């Protein structure tokens, strides 16, 4: 819309289309556009370029909250990775493990997905590639027991970081969400402040259901951060704007590929720029 000379209804409709097709959602889109509508009506925003910058600023302000990892004196630093099926939890854990290892942190993984076919095998292949140990039990064993063991073992062996994989689960499945709550309770028996970090992994291709996922997971186990994956596709991942706006839980990392190096800390500025591309 840079070709336009003035702000008119056509331009606003074009912006609405850009936002909605980026999965920002109707409600959040209206909220963002309404927030600048006042300036438009009062003519303090006169041209399309100013409007675009005002919108970018609105979104940036929503997203730009402290997204550093939770600080603690505890060892190990326990991270739990959760989310619905297929979003990229296991792969993201492998990427984070490499990242921590390169920072000189003694890292261990816990094979907490004891349910899905070959889930433990999958995590073990990654652990081998990154050269970090995995605490695991046989398939079908109790996920909470595996994670409890892992914390115990990491405490004994002075590990710096423990990243726990969990089985994918739809937020609407009450018994599976209860299992996740149990994992957190059991972890606290071994380390009262664990898990220090609970990351919800969201797929950038998701639509508005991502909000429902975030709300439910946050309500049930408490989230400290989000990981947005598959940004190497054509989806914009705009659903996180409404999520961050509502929960004030920051996006900590983004995944942009299937390779071990395809993860980096979330940068609100870059995200907003990409949205308007």
């Amino acid at each position, binding site marked *: 819309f840079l070709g336009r000379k003035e702000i008119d209804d056509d331009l606003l409709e074009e912006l609405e289309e850009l936002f909605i097709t980026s999965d920002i959602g*109707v409600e959040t889109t209206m909220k963002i556009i309404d927030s600048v509508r006042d300036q438009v009506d009062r003519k303090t925003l006169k041209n399309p370029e100013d409007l675009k910058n005002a919108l970018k600023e609105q979104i940036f302000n929503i997203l730009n909250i402290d997204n550093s990892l939770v600080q603690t004196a505890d060892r190990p630093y326990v991270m739990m990775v959760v989310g619905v099926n297929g979003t990229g939890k296991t792969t993201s854990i492998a990427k984070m493990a490499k990242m921590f290892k390169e920072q000189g942190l003694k890292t261990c993984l816990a094979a907490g997905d004891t349910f899905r076919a*070959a889930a433990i095998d999958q995590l073990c292949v990654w652990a081998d590639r990154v050269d970090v140990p995995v605490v695991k039990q046989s398939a079908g064993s109790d996920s909470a027991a595996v994670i409890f063991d892992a914390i115990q073992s990491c405490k004994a062996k002075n590990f710096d970081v423990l990243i726990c994989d969990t089985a994918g689960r739809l937020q609407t499945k009450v018994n599976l969400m209860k299992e996740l709550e149990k994992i957190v309770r059991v972890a606290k028996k071994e380390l009262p402040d664990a898990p220090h970090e609970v990351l919800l992994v969201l797929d950038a291709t998701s639509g508005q259901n991502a909000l429902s996922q975030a709300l439910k997971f946050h309500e049930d186990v408490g989230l400290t951060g989000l990981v947005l994956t598959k940004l190497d596709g054509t989806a914009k991942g705009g659903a996180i704007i409404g999520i961050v706006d509502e929960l004030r839980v920051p996006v900590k990392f983004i995944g942009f590929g299937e390779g071990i190096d395809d993860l980096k800390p979330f940068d609100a500025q870059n995200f907003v720029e990409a949205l308007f591309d």
Partner: protein
Amino acid sequence: TLNDKLNGVFKKLKKQVRLDENNITEALKMVRMALLEADVNYKVVKNFIGSVQAKAMGEEVLKSLTPDQVFIKIVHDELVEILGGKDYDEGKIRLNSQPPTVIMMAGLQGSGKTTSAGKLAGLLMKQKRNVLLVAGDIYRPAAIDQLETLGKQLNCDVYSDRQSRDAVKIAADALAYAKKTAKDVVIIDTAGRLHIDEELMAELVRTKEAVTPDEILFVADAMTGQDAVNVAKSFNESLEATGIILTKMDGDARGGAALSIKEVTGKPLKFIGTGEKMTEFEAFYPDRMASRILG
């Protein structure tokens, strides 16, 4: 629900004998909102609202009905029609008169291809077919193990080649093996890939050329958002899909992607995944999907 909202809109209008521009403008806005909230693509919604408007204008309200009932029926019926009301291809696999029937799975990473391949094998085995699952994903860690585990659960033969770095050759060899062992159906699981990954999309096309599938099933996640049109269009243009599977329908995603995908590809929505178990697989029902999308 949308029904309640529309009820409210029409209640404000006095006894209407006919649907006209005045009384349906507000109602159309509500339907548009409902569809966008359900993740139906922006442009698909625009076209849909246009069709509904055209069908609703001048529609007579019979004495036995209220304007909102007439309106919602037009919306619902239009949605059902697009979703496949006239297709009758739901829940069916096109079997080749010359076995084996070859089925190829395709779709984005994590959409549910491997799980759906197992479910499809289970379904066909119940129909007394001799099925061969093919572990065509040579990239994802433990992908072969995953399919082999499902195969064991189903008591279904799985063809794999752990040494091969050539997915196309694996498919071709699997087909030769299937013919030799008199299989009725071959289901080829493929690696998840992006529609914009030229190399991997070309691999899929070469696989298709090597085994000439009777069915190419595009597997999509029910929670997919606006990008569903771009992905589906790309996959369909490269491969000419023959059917669509919508997974994770056991969640609460409204599933608007179904409408977007159907609209942009024209291909039949055949099955839905309703859970992680091998039995959680059903035929797609247009009218149930329509109600779910409208909310």
